[in-house]
């Protein structure tokens, strides 16, 4: 009867696992993982593979992800597919900022992940310089199965709550900070930590 005595003595903190909120969080995570609508952000040849993933042969609709939303307000996941040029980077960041929390980013393909073979002045060397990336999919381009593997990795991340851990550890956002008028700095991201 240790359990009852602990609860009587310490209230809910006496429980080893706080099952009331624990269950709710996993329910929320479960719901988030299974309705993760991607924003369309196909920039190059990787987008062709992304379209193939959404089509009948791989059928992202099995995971509630078939609706690619053109409006960032309705999207949860940004799949950056293709090389990001220096001119495109601010646009990418704006789209990301316009997305509602919670939001995730998959960097699809080597060009988005690190610039790939385009190591030159025109291409951003890794999209994680602009937005926080959750999962990297390697390949040039990644096949539909590689993208799905990345998506499953992201699902694992969402359901285990690692996203929140990372956000709180790094102070939200890509580690970008803006100077405010009062002299303080703040993380350059819309939404709560």
């Amino acid at each position, binding site marked *: 009867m240790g359990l009852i005595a602990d609860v009587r003595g310490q209230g809910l903190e006496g429980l080893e696992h706080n099952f009331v909120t624990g269950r709710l969080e996993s329910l929320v995570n479960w719901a988030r993982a299974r309705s993760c609508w991607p924003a369309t952000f196909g920039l190059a040849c990787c987008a062709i593979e992304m379209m193939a993933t959404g089509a*009948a*042969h*791989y*059928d992202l609709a*099995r995971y509630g992800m078939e609706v690619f939303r053109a409006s960032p307000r309705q999207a949860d996941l940004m799949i950056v597919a293709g090389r990001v040029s220096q001119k495109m980077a601010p646009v990418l960041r704006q789209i990301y900022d316009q997305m509602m929390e919670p939001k995730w980013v998959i960097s699809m393909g*080597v060009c988005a*992940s*690190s*610039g*790939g*073979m385009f*190591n030159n002045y025109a291409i951003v060397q*890794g999209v*994680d310089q602009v937005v926080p990336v*959750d*999962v*990297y*999919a*390697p*390949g*040039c381009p*990644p*096949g539909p*199965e*590689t993208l*799905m*593997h*990345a998506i*499953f*990795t992201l699902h*694992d*991340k969402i359901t285990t709550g*690692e996203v929140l851990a990372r956000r709180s550890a790094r102070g939200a956002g890509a580690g970008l900070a803006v100077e405010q008028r009062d002299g303080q700095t703040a993380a350059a991201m819309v939404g709560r930590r």
Partner: protein
Amino acid sequence: MGYLNGFAVTLRQLFKPRVTTDYRGGRAKPGQPDAKRPKPERLHGRHVLNRYPDGMEKCIGCELCAGVCPAHCIYVRGADNDPAHPTAPGERYGYVYEINYLRCIHCDLCVEACPTQAITESKLFEFSFTNRDDAVYTKAELLVDDEGRPRKLAWEDWRDGDDEDTSGWMRATSPSGDRRYAGAVAWSGELGYGVRPPEPADDEPRTDGEQRADDELRADGEPRAADEPRADDEGGG
């Protein structure tokens, strides 16, 4: 009534067989299907560092792969062999060998450049990372195990057949190569595993067997059946 044509298309599709491959990334619950589509024979996937049958490493640390790589994703540092306990035959061996999979474009140029056929590419293409550091594969991850098979790392989704027909034999026996070298020691397959008879060069007369195989290929338009026995004992070192 033109709009009914659209409904007719939907109705027709309803009764067709499903084309979806039930891929679940190795996370299927018991009873759930989890299939990959069959891969082409010449697909380029994750690299493998090979060994000789006696366990010696093939890599000699020459850095030709790093030099030829268009994406500069390979980092090699060679070191002198300890004469008493050599890691590789010859003077040098690959002391550090790293491939950054967030740069690699799987072009197979490293495989073509390698003089000892130390690096080949497997068919494994299903892997993803949650941070950049994981994407840099070190030598411990790339090197084959004692049986000559690639190491199946926890975050990769290996299936049967992904480590077959890795790209080493393709270079050694391709028509652009000189087939007189096929089967010689320097052109050995991976532990005698995955070796198949050489393809003829374009300008060479065909032997009877090859001619017959070509005729069969032309007759049914199908490549070789996967279960056809391979001459695994030919060639190799």
